[in-house]
């Protein structure tokens, strides 16, 4: 697909970073405010899709190699599983192994919950962006849409 006009490209340069920062904020504060890993991960994916829609997929393919997307998704899934399997020696699954859970309402509290949110945000974000790239790169030969 082709990119859009010049105004859209100029504005996209500024808004892509803001949307990505907002997505990371929602993932990081998942245990204090509504949101969490899933909503934040989808917002991160939407920021990359925003860039692809504005600049066209040929230019986006240069900046985002395939390997990075697949490594990111697998790393997110394996990290989530690893957090769950930490307590397997004692017979626990998904044990919140932090003894000192910190003070409530602070950013560094609640044990493993922020770590799980980060793993899920990474996985969902890169996975949904991979779906979008697969759908947009698939083109019938001789049919431009």
């Amino acid at each position, binding site marked *: 697909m082709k990119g859009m006009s010049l105004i859209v490209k100029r504005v996209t340069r500024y808004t892509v970073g803001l949307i990505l920062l907002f997505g990371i904020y929602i993932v990081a504060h998942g245990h204090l*405010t*509504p949101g*969490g890993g*899933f909503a934040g991960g989808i917002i991160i994916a939407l920021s990359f899709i925003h860039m692809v829609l504005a600049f066209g997929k040929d230019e986006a393919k240069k900046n985002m190699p395939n390997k990075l997307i697949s490594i990111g998704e697998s790393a997110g899934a394996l990290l989530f599983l690893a957090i769950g399997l930490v307590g397997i020696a004692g017979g626990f699954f998904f044990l919140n192994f932090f003894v000192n859970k910190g003070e*409530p*309402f602070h950013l560094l509290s609640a044990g493993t919950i922020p770590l799980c949110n980060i793993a899920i945000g990474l996985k*969902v974000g890169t996975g*949904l962006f991979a*779906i979008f790239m*697969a*759908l947009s790169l*698939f083109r*019938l030969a001789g049919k431009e849409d």
Partner: protein
Amino acid sequence: MPLLLMDMVLFLIGFYALIAKRNLIKKVIGFGIMEYAVNLFFILIGYKEGGEAPILSKIQGLGIYVDPLPQALILTSIVIGLGVTALMVALCIRIYQRYGTFDIAQIRRLKG
């Protein structure tokens, strides 16, 4: 209780689109509407009159809260619905590439 019955009517509208339309994308749309109806049903059951959102804050103590358990289950269901719809659309795109049409009556007749 009338709200729950109206929710069932929404489910039936989606079901009608799933079985009575010949276009594949209309069937996918009907599937999506059925999903909205089922998710809404669970959250309607867990509502408490005068309750607050289930997020604690420094200002108030333990008041009356809405049921957080159906919300946790439906959060999972919404994201899974997105994955299933993406897979269905990928299948539709492949079928269109193979047969040239979205009409299921013609897809049944064409052979190879």
